[in-house]
Structure formats: structure tokens, C-alpha cells
């Protein structure tokens, strides 16, 4: 169990470290894979059919479809080059680690969990979420923001599946659909931005002020 | 009766003042009846009226005269209660005089000459600054008497220090109001230094006579106010003969003082007048404080 969680966190670190869009997507795929494994593990442990289906959906969407979609975008928009950093990877890594520490401390201080594993996975997911947000803040390109967003969602799924043993089934499905739709819409907007501005550097989108 | 007395002897007082001044200057000077001669002369002279003027100009003199006559009715002379004490009391005197001044100032503006405008501007300036001092000084005395009724005031027997101070400030006000040196100079012939004279510059003949008479009476009113406030001997014991005598003596004394001041100080610049009147205001305020302290 722990190995998956650690893997997820490591993957988010690599996402923070990533200099190229492709590597970002790849590490996201890896993270989703670990997430899938974690969920699968939970499913086996709890022997709940719903969690199996959820895991399957994870595999389908987050490991296969969405990364493929993203890399399509990358290829179409020809932007394998750098993803535009506000902070250099090492500093961001430090911050990411710090975030992990904070969320761990916070979790252990404030909340009392049934089991240590729950506490650990909660802190892990919290840190993953935070790191995803961090990626959204400190990466310039639109696509990297999308990936950060997806990373945050991974964190959420981690909580949902591991800590609280899976949400009600149709809720999960709905959320999946929602995520998928939103990613698609993000993609559409990325295309539009690229068409209008001939770049997807959203840090340059600052005409609307005051 | 008494008011008629005032109106009649009013010009003579100005004559006396002139006499005193001349004597102090080692001159003979005109007799004390000279003002009467002037009035009569003006009264029968032909009147020249500017064609720019309106009805304001022509009714102003009579209003002025009427106002001072009414004011004269309100002043206690040598009996306790003035004739028109049903009409009002000393505040009314101030306001009535203001009425006359208002119309005179308008008349000064009416002809459209710059002297008239200058005169009325300065006149309103001085009088508006003088008003608080006048009111407060009389009020200080009424604090002593415990009433604002003039008759009652002048029947108050004890002479207090505060009332002397009040009388002093009232004297300064009177100097300002009756356009005497150091505020104004009645005898000047240079328009730019005039205040009152400049305002009535356009008047001639009978109207001028009215205005002159009015200013004499006004001066008389102030003097008798001072007299009855400073030393309410006039009504001591109610012996009418004694009262009249005392009153006349006081009036003579005051006019002597005024004349002495006129020859002994030089005329002020217009904007020093502010300090002069502020000083009189402070004195009257001091008088109030003193009288509250009970002296």
C-alpha cells in the first residue's frame, strides 16, 4: 500500500522537476498508474466490486485516454520544448517537499484517523493536491496548468478511494464524467488560445486588468 | 418731551465738541450754534439729485431721520422709563440704527459713483464690527442691574467698575458710529479719506439737512446711553431738576472727552479700525467678566 502512495508522491515530484512538456505528461501518466494500483489494492482489500470498476475507469481515463489526448495536443501544437518555469526545478522541488511536510504535520496534528495508513494516505493526497496547485501556479503554459489540475484531481481520488473507502458509486461515475468533460473542454480552449495568440503561454494573457 | 429735548439740543452738542476742539487748538472757532445755521442753510438750498438714482435715494433721508427719532424715543434721559418702552428696548435701538444705516448705504451705492460705493462699503464694515461691542457693553451693565430693561438699568444706583469699563467700550463704539477721529474725520474734504461723508456725498439741500440732523441725534443717543449707563445719577432720588442738571453735565463732560480725543490722536488707517473695534469688544467682554465676578 505505502509503496503506491510513495510512488504517487515521487511522481508529483518528478512533475515538479519536469522541464519538458512530454516528461510532464509522462510523469502524470505514471502517477495515474500508481493511483490505479492503489485503488486496485484497496479494491482487493475491501473486495468491493464498485472499487474495481472505479479502478478500471481510472486506468481507462487517466492512464490511457487523457495522457494520449494531452500528448496529441502537444504534437499538434508542436510544443515539446520547455514548459516555461517561474521557479527553477530545484527550488520548486524544495517547496514541494516542504508542502508534503506541511500536509503531513497538519494531518497528524489536527485530525485523528482510524488507522495510520489512513492518516498517511490522507497526508499524501493532501500533499499531492497542494503540489498540483503549485504546478498550476508556477508553470506558465496552459497545458501544464491542465496537468496540474489533473494532478490535484489525482490527489482527490486518492482520498476518495483510500481514506474513505470509495464514495457512493454513481457519484464516482459522475465525477469521472465531469473530469473527462472538463479536460476535453480545456483542450478545446487550449486550441483556441493557440489559434488566437499563436502561443499557449497563459502568463502573457494579462490584458484584462483592474 | 425728553426725546424732543434730545432732538433739539443734538446739533448743539456737535457744536460744543467743535468748540472744545478749537479751543484746545488755541482757536476761537465757530459758535456752538453753528450746526443750526448749517442745517437751516441746507434746508432752504436747492437740491441736486443725480439722474442715475432711484427712489431708494430719495426716501433714504426720511427713513434715516425716522429711525433715529424712534431710537431717541427709546432712550431713557432723566426719567426712569423711556417714552416708548412698550415699543422695545436697547436691542431695538441698535437694530433701528442699523435700519437707517442700511438705507443710507444703499443710497450711497445708488448714484453709481465710486466714492459712494467706497463710503457705504466702509460704513457697513465698521458698523458690522462695532455691533457686537455695542451690544455686549450694554449687556454688561444689564448684568449688573439684573435686567435688560433700560429704564431699570439706568435706575440702578450703585456705580460699579464693570459699568465704567462697559461705558468705555461704548464710548469707543460711539466714536466709530458717529464717524469721529480716529475712525473717520467729519471735517475732511478729501473724498478718499471719507467714510460717512463719502457715503452721503451725493446728497445736497434738504435731504442732506435731514441726514446731518439724523447723525447729530444719533450721536446724542449714544452719549445719553453712555451717560445713563456710566453714572445713572440722572435719576437719583427722582428729583427732576437735579436729574436734568446731572444729565446735562454728563453730556458736556462726554463731549469734552470726545473733543479732546479728536484733537489728540491722529486718524487711523481703515484696517487698523479692526483692531480698535476688537479692542472695544474685548473691553466689553472684560466688563461682562468683571460684572459676573461682581465688581
Amino acid at each position, binding site marked *: 500500500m505505502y509503496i503506491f502512495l510513495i510512488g504517487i508522491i515521487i511522481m508529483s515530484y518528478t512533475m515538479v522537476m519536469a522541464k519538458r512538456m512530454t516528461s510532464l505528461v509522462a510523469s502524470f501518466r505514471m502517477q495515474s498508474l500508481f493511483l490505479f494500483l492503489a485503488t486496485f489494492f484497496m479494491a482487493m482489500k475491501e473486495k468491493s466490486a464498485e472499487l474495481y470498476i472505479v479502478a478500471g475507469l481510472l486506468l481507462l481515463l487517466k492512464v490511457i485516454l487523457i495522457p494520449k489526448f494531452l500528448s496529441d495536443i502537444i504534437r499538434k501544437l508542436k510544443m515539446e520544448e520547455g514548459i516555461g518555469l*517561474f521557479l527553477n526545478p530545484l527550488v520548486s522541488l524544495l517547496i514541494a517537499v516542504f508542502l508534503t511536510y506541511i500536509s503531513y504535520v497538519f494531518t497528524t496534528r489536527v485530525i485523528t484517523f482510524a488507522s495510520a495508513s489512513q492518516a498517511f494516505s490522507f497526508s499524501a493526497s493532501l500533499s499531492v493536491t497542494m503540489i498540483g496547485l503549485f504546478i498550476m501556479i508556477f508553470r506558465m503554459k496552459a497545458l501544464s496548468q491542465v496537468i496540474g489540475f489533473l494532478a490535484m484531481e489525482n490527489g482527490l481520488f486518492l482520498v476518495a478511494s483510500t481514506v474513505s473507502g470509495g464514495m457512493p458509486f454513481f457519484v464516482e461515475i459522475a465525477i469521472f464524467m465531469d473530469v473527462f468533460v472538463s479536460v476535453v473542454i480545456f483542450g478545446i480552449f487550449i486550441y483556441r488560445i493557440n489559434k488566437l495568440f499563436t502561443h499557449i503561454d497563459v*502568463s502573457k494573457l494579462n490584458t484584462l486588468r483592474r | 418731551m425728553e426725546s424732543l429735548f434730545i432732538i433739539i439740543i443734538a446739533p448743539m452738542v456737535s457744536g460744543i465738541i467743535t468748540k472744545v476742539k478749537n479751543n484746545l487748538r488755541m482757536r476761537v472757532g465757530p459758535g456752538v450754534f453753528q450746526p443750526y445755521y448749517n442745517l437751516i442753510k441746507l434746508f432752504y438750498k436747492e437740491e*441736486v439729485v443725480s439722474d442715475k438714482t432711484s427712489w431708494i435715494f430719495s426716501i433714504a433721508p426720511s427713513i434715516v431721520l425716522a429711525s433715529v427719532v424712534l431710537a431717541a424715543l427709546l432712550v431713557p434721559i432723566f426719567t426712569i422709563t423711556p417714552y416708548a418702552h412698550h415699543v422695545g428696548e436697547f436691542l431695538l435701538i441698535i437694530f433701528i440704527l442699523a435700519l437707517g444705516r442700511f438705507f443710507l448705504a444703499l443710497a450711497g451705492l*445708488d448714484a453709481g*459713483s465710486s466714492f459712494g460705493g467706497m463710503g457705504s462699503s466702509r460704513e457697513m464694515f465698521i458698523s458690522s464690527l462695532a455691533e457686537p461691542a455695542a*451690544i455686549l457693553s450694554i449687556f454688561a451693565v444689564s448684568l449688573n442691574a439684573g435686567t435688560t430693561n433700560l429704564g431699570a438699568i439706568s435706575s440702578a444706583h450703585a456705580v460699579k467698575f464693570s459699568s465704567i469699563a462697559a461705558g468705555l467700550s461704548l464710548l469707543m463704539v460711539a466714536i466709530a458710529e458717529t464717524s469721529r477721529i480716529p475712525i473717520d474725520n467729519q471735517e475732511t474734504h478729501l473724498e478718499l479719506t471719507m467714510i460717512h461723508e463719502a457715503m452721503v456725498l451725493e446728497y445736497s439741500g434738504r435731504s442732506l439737512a435731514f441726514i446731518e440732523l439724523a447723525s447729530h441725534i444719533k450721536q446724542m443717543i449714544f452719549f445719553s446711553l453712555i451717560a445713563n449707563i456710566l453714572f445713572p445719577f440722572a435719576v437719583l432720588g427722582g428729583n427732576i431738576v437735579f436729574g436734568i442738571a446731572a444729565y446735562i453735565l454728563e453730556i458736556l463732560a462726554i463731549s469734552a472727552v470726545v473733543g479732546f480725543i479728536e484733537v489728540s490722536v491722529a486718524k487711523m488707517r481703515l484696517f487698523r479700525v479692526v483692531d480698535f473695534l476688537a479692542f472695544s469688544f474685548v473691553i466689553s467682554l472684560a466688563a*461682562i467678566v468683571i460684572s459676573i465676578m461682581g465688581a
Partner: protein
Amino acid sequence: MGNFFDIRMSFLFDPLAVFFLSVIFLVSLPSAVYSIGYLAKKYSPRKIAYAWFLLTAFIISMALVVSVASALTFLIAWEIMSLVSYFLVVFDSKEEKSVQAGVIYLVMTHVGTAFIMAGFLIMHKYANSFDFISLKQASAIMPSSVKNIVFLFLLTGFGTKAGIVPFHIWLPYAHPQAPSHISSIMSGVMIKTGIYGIIRFVIFILGVDSMWWGSLILVLAGVSCLVGVIYALMEHDIKKLLAYHSIENIGIILLGVGSSMVFLKLNMPGLAIFSLIAGLYHLINHAVFKGLLFLCAGGVYSATGTRDIERLGGLIKKMPLTAFSFLIGAMAISALPPLNGFVSEWLTLQAFFVASLTACTAGLKIFFSLCAAILALTGGLAAACFVKAFGMVFLAMPRSKSPENASEVSLSMKTGMLFLVFFTIALGLGAGFVFRLLKVVAQSVASCDIGAVKLSLNDFMFLEGQASGVNLSTPLVALILGAVMIGIYLGFGRNKIRKYNTWDCGYYKLGSRNEYTATGFSKPFRIAFNFFLMPYTRTEKLRKSFYYIRSFKYETFTTPVFKKYMYYPLIGMIFTTAKFMRRLQSGSIHMYISYIFITILVLIIFMNKF
């Protein structure tokens, strides 16, 4: 549940309300009549219909303000009144000036209303009802600290509407911009609703709780008197001049009201009633003669098309009736007997005198005599100011082209003016009668009966120890004056008269350029009060070459103290803060997301603080 406040119309027609209603209609009626002629001259039929709609709405809202019986309905009527008057201020909506004036006016009055609202709601906390009567009962259980706060709030709010210094700045903007008949209503009546508020909510409902209330009002009133009249002296726009005089007269009214509050606290009912009467009397007087003056000013404006008195003159020949009405109004406002302004100022002065004759402490005695002095000074300055106004507008020769081909105003305008002229005189001569009426009003407000104290205009005395009373009978004054004047005419008449030029020192062509100007007239005052006005001059040389100056321009200004040292810094502060905050919305989405990040972090860290 749900109806926390009932917006049911409940009225309270006690003497105070009736008094104010009568004031409202006394001024609104002639102004409405006047407006017939006034509007027809300037505006299109649609605009005229609009104006009539607004006028009726305005009058109704004012009537509601003074007659409703619940604080909530009062608040609503109050705001509607402000709204309608705003629309009236921006009536000439094409002009940038009137729009700006409207903004200043509405913002000021709204800030005032915010204070009033807060005060009401704090009272409502104790009463659990907006009804006047229950508020009055609740004020008994209010702790005095709360009472003080409520008083300050109400004073600020109503003072803003009444235009007492330093909340007066909207007044000289708003009043001149409205059409003249509206200016007369606004300046004559609307600002009085502020006084109504103070009387109704402070004296009647809250009850005078501590000494400093009245004293504070007295101080503010004195300041308002002087500031108003001094600015009026410096002002050359006729309608602005009148607006500043409204500030002054509000000060005089409040002198009466404030002293009555002091006496109520000192438990001297007789004096309290008396000075309240003085205040109310001046209130109605000011309504009448200020309305009259504004109507006349409007007549002059519509006849000549300018409000700058430096460019007017000689109108007494062109429009005699307007001149006469203006003269009456001017005499009244400069407190000349036997007109109404004189009566009320006389009453106020008497109140001060008797007060300091009978007041307990020496400090109060001196304080009151100072108030009297201020009032006297104000009266003198006002007289000077109106000599200037009347002289420059109506007397001598026209100072520019515009007044030369002026003509007398139309019939309806004349009617409006004459109506008010009549009341100006009537309120002066019928003083005794009016006094008796106002006594009823004042007694009902202060809710104390003074049957014991002998109190009538002729011969009133407050304490037994007093030697004898003082009298005033304006009819007798008028009678004697008239008699003497007639006597003079009958006795002497006038001997032969020769029309000739004005004395010109032998200068051959004396023209309107030689006339004394308003600026020149007010110069002595400008120099006397330079510590407050801070006059400064600007000279400008239009030169052809370095050596040859074609013309030389010399202007003199006065510093608007309150705006410069009170309002501009405040506004500047607000704007700098806003400009600083602008950086929040920098346009960078990363920054936006980081806001969320920071917020959540802060919240989590300080979670247990909440």
C-alpha cells in the same frame, strides 16, 4: 415572522408636525405658482411636465418626512426626498456642473443618511419597534453612553442635510444648480427637515441627556453663522450667495434650538421654551424670506441670463417689483425692524441675555454672551452682504450688456413673490400672534407646561426676582416709523430739485466702469477675515514683447478651508488606497490561483482561531 418592520403609513400630527407642514406649504405654494412663468420661459413642454411631476413628488415626500410616526417610514420618505431633490438638482442635465453638483449632494446626504440609519437601528435595539412613541419610551432605558453615540450620529446625519459647518459643502453646489423655484424650496424648506430631525429625534424622542449636547450644537451653530456669512460676503454668484446665507441662518436657528437644549438640561422650562420658540420663529422666517430671495434671484436670472452680480446693475428701473420684493427680503434677512427676521433674531438675543442673567455658572454666562456677540456680528455682516447684493444687482448703472434689455417678470412669478412679501411683513408685524402659536408647538415638543411663567412677546419675565420685563411690539415700531416719515413729508415735502450727473470730480465721462464693484465692496471684509479666508492673488501678463505688456490680468481668490483641509485629503486617501489595490487584479492567472492557495493555507493554519 418576516415582518420585521411594518411599512404601514402611520401619521403623527402633533403641533410640531403641523408647524413644519405649514412651513412646507407656505413656501411650496408660491414657488409652484412662480414656476409656471419661470419654466415656460426656459424649457420644453415635456421638461415642464417632468418638472411638475418632480415638484409634486418633492413636496409630498417632504410632507411625509415631517408627518410620519415611525422611524422607518421616516427613513424611506427621507431617502425619497433626497432622491427627488437630486433629480431636481440635475434638472438641467446637459450641464456638467449640475451633474457634478448632484453627485456631491447625493453622496453627502447619503453619508448623512447612513449615520441616521445607524442611530435609528441602535435605538430600535432597545425599542424593538420603529414607532416614535415606543422609541421615546425606550430612550428611558438606554444607557447614557449609547445615548451619546446616537446623538452624535443623528447630529451628523441631520446636520449634513441642514448644512451646518463642516458638512455644508454640498449646499453651495446644489442649491444654485436647481431651477430657482426649487432652490427656494430646497433652501427654504428642505434643509429645515434636518432641523426637524434634530428637534424630533433628539429633543422629543431621545430627550436631552447631558450638558454638552446643547453646547456642541451651539458651538457648531456659531461657527456655521460666521462661516456662512463670511463666505457669502466673498461670493458673487447671487444664488450661491443666498445658499451661503442659508448656512448662516441654519446656524441662527440652531442657536435657538441648542440653547433650549441646554436649558432643558438645566431644568429651566421657561427659558427652554422661549429659545425654542426663537429658533422655530427664525426657521419659518428664514423659510419665507429665503424663498422670496431665491424667487427674486431667479427672476433676475431669467431676465438677464447671468447670476454674476458683477455684471448686473440698474435693474431697479427695469424690474421695479422684483427690486421691491428683493429689498423686503434683504431687509428681513439682515434683521431690520419691523420685518420678521428682526423679530426672531431679537428673540434669540433676548434668550441669550436672559439666559446669562439667570444661568447658574459663570462659564455659561460668558458662553451665552459670546453667542450673543456672534449673533450680533453675523447680523451686521449679513446686512453688509445684502447692501452689496442689492446695490450691485439693482442700483446704479448696468455693468454689462446683459441687464440693459431686461424686462419685468411675468405675472405668475410676480404673484409668487408678492405672496411671500406679504408673509415676510405679516410675520414681522403679527409677531405677538405667531409667538403665541409657536408657544404651543414648543411646549408640546419639550413636553413641559410653563403656565406658571409669564411668557408673551410683550413683557415676558422668567424669574420672579427680575425687576421688569422687556417689550417688543413691531406694529408700534412700524407705526412710529411710518408716522415720522409721513410727518417729514407733510411737514417739509421737498423743495425744488435739479437732475444732474453724479459728482465726477470733473472727470468728463462717468460710466459704469467707474462704479464700485462687489469685489471692491467686500475687500475690507476680505482683509479683516484673512486669517480664515486666506486670500491669494494671481497676476497674469499678456505681453506682446518683453518690453510691451498688452494687458494685465489680476485675479484674487480665497482658500476654501474646509474643502482643502478636510475633504480633499480624505478623497485623496481613498483614491490612493484604491489605486494601490488595483495591483490585486494584475491580469496574471498564476497570481489569481496563488490567491486561492494562500487563502486556503492561511485558513488552515489559523483554523482554530475561528
